[in-house]
């Protein structure tokens, strides 16, 4: 781990072979963050992730806005997964205010969340593809993502930032014949993502490139508190949807895929397998959903919470996403802490990158399912 190495520039005194590279923030392989790496030839000897390039104080902002008006800006950290980041917030506020969500709204929430998870994973996968130099894998997911964005747009009226979930349900019912369109497009989508296997997941070059690189053992994964696909790729079967089912996940038929290798390949494969499960969930939910009914509980304009605290978590596209809401009897939260999966997985980055080859940097880094904007909040 990087923690063993002394901070600062002491390494450079050891030898002048060490070169310091700023990977990011304006680098095609960094996202909105900076990783300061020190390389000795082809090997990375020191990694220092430096997030914060797009930090905008969502937690501070949330203390000034009431429980409803927090919604549009709380989804900004992960606009590709905006339903899932609002999910724990809505669950927490419902617990705080003691609201009971109508049955149909629960199902629609699950559908929206799963669609959004697929959208996020497609986007993530696209960037993973281009990080590995696979331009087709950039274009295909970004194209196929449109299918789901189209569905989400039919549901919510916005293509990316939906602001769809509110405490007490969802904002609007789906349009008529949405079920048919959804089923058709999700089926086609599933057919499409199966084709990724040929060019990407079964590609021997990809396998040889990502196998046995950045191996995160089961013990390390648990010790470092990683979550989501990183954790499940290391052999820990931990999915909030299974372990702490929220809304109607306990009634739906799905599994959470788990792999044992813990290398970059396994970490990159888990989200892909997740998409199949998401398709299953969506189909199942469409079948079990009540065909009509209320979708939203009416709220007072400025609801006030009690003097208590809530911690709710959901399984987002990247892993467990928790919201810690401290209420002091005001319309605004006293403190809102978003425990984001990206930030939790960031701890694994220095652990994994130090000692790797420079060429493995993008493969390992992006397989951590890390979304820089979310970690910065």
């Amino acid at each position: 781990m990087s923690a063993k190495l002394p901070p600062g520039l002491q390494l450079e005194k050891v030898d002048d072979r060490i070169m310091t590279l700023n990977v990011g923030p304006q680098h095609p392989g960094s996202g909105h963050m900076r990783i300061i790496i020190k390389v000795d030839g082809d090997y990375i000897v020191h990694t220092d992730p430096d997030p914060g390039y797009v930090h905008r104080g969502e937690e501070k902002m949330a203390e000034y806005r009431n429980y409803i008006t927090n919604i549009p800006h709380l989804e900004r950290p992960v606009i590709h997964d905006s339903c899932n980041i609002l999910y724990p917030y809505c669950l927490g506020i419902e617990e705080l205010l003691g609201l009971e969500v109508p049955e149909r709204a629960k199902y629609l929430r699950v559908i929206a969340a799963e669609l959004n998870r697929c959208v996020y994973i497609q986007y993530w996968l696209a960037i993973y593809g281009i990080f590995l130099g696979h331009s087709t894998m950039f274009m295909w997911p970004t194209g196929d993502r449109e299918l789901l964005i189209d569905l989400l747009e039919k549901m919510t009226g916005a293509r990316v930032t939906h602001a769809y979930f509110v405490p007490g349900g969802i904002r609007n019912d789906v349009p008529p014949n949405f079920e048919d369109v959804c089923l058709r497009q999700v089926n086609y989508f599933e057919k499409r993502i199966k084709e990724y296997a040929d060019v990407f997941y079964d590609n021997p070059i990809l396998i040889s490139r990502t196998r046995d690189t950045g191996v995160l053992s089961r013990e390390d994964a648990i010790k470092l508190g990683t979550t989501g696909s990183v954790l499940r790729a290391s052999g820990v079967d931990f999915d909030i949807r299974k372990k702490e089912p929220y809304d109607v996940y306990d009634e739906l038929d799905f599994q959470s895929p788990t792999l044992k290798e813990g290398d970059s390949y396994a970490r990159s494969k888990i989200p892909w397998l997740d998409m199949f499960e998401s398709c299953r969930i969506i189909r199942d939910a469409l079948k079990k959903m009540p065909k009509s009914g209320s979708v939203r509980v009416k709220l007072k304009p400025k609801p006030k919470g009690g003097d208590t605290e809530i911690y709710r978590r959901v399984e987002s596209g990247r892993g467990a996403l928790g919201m810690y809401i401290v209420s002091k009897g005001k319309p605004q939260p006293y403190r809102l802490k978003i425990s984001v999966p990206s930030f939790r997985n960031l701890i694994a980055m220095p652990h994994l990158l130090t000692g790797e080859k420079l060429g493995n940097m993008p493969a390992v880094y992006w397989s951590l399912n890390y979304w820089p904007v979310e970690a910065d909040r």
Partner: protein
Amino acid sequence: MSVIAPKFRLGYLIKGVIDNIFWIILLVTLIGIPIVQIVLIYIDFPIIDGEIWNPFRVLDALTHPERALPLVVSFMQSDLFKVVAFPGFGFAALIAAATIFIERKMLAKLQLRVGPFYCGKVEGILQLMADGLKLISKEIIIPAKADKPIFWAAPVLFAATAGAFVALIPVAPGWVVADIDLGLLAVFAVIGFFPIITILSAWSSNSKFPFIGGIRALHQMVSFEIPLILSVLGIVMLTGTLNLAEIVQSQANFPWIIFMPVGAVVFFITILAELERIPFDLPEAESEIVAGWLTEFSGMMYGLVQLGTYLKLYAFAGLFVVLFLGGWNGPDIVPPFPAEIVTDGITILPGALTVEIPGLPLLAHEMINGTIWFMLKTIGVILVILLPRGVFPRIRIDMLLHIGWYKLIALSFVNIFIALALVYGGVIGPGGIL
């Protein structure tokens, strides 16, 4: 708004243009014409068909096609034409441009996109021209502390070396810029220059990412040069010549890829690596080292490097065709010219206005056929070279070196022993089929 300079005034422009025209006319009359006259005194005019061709005769001949034709023919057989136009630079640059367009369209199709579409009405055919215009009008930024002479020279040298490589590729019988006995060896000598230019340009830019990229490019080119050299040895052993044209002639009956598929595969993979194409585009791996050794190039410098890369691509594809696919050999597509046209000439508009032009056709029909076959095969090979970009990710430098030094060298020795077995088994060689 920002297109025109802020202090633009039409009057200044017109004045500037008139000034320029004035100076040009002055210089031309004062310096140019005397120089031309001096040159005309000392230069030996070419003698074609027993006639001395001075400029006045050339002007005269332009009005008489039957007299102009021998001039054209003799010009087309001169070295200058070969270097500038047909098998040389112009032809290769045209193919390079076409390759860029084909690559973009094909990749777009594969990725369910549209690709260039709006420029030039028909499927964006003029996109390249637009890109060239854009590149030429962009600012060239040279990083501070860069080694300026090397940095300026590197793109030009890169493209020019690729041009020198093109000179060695025979396109049709007799149509090669440099017809030399040791053509294959000359190819190896020429491609040895690319790593030097790469590493020099990388070093000269005084930046970290280009430096890493240049070192990677060096390792990659250097490591794949040996399999490249060894994989061709089988053919040399079977044909006993290093002349590329003779190698093509030796494939009149069957291309060598039939006997040496292993060598062809090795050669193809090394081509991909030498060209820095995916899956071997490590020197330009943008997710690790921004754009590799091209990071600091801007504007037309980048354009020249790209031109050089695609010239190189054409040259390598042509080399593959020449070595393994039989070059210009193939059944006739264009029928031979009727004998009377060759001997008597052609009669245009019989009756009303009869013009007899002897000496047609300008080009032998073998040449036309050969060029067509060569072009077809080359475009096929180029397509196959372009395809992996759509379906493969990039590999890692240590894996690349491992492939080059372990697998490809071993395979190329397998190929050599296949060739040796063919020779000593009597299949090919003296007493064999050939």
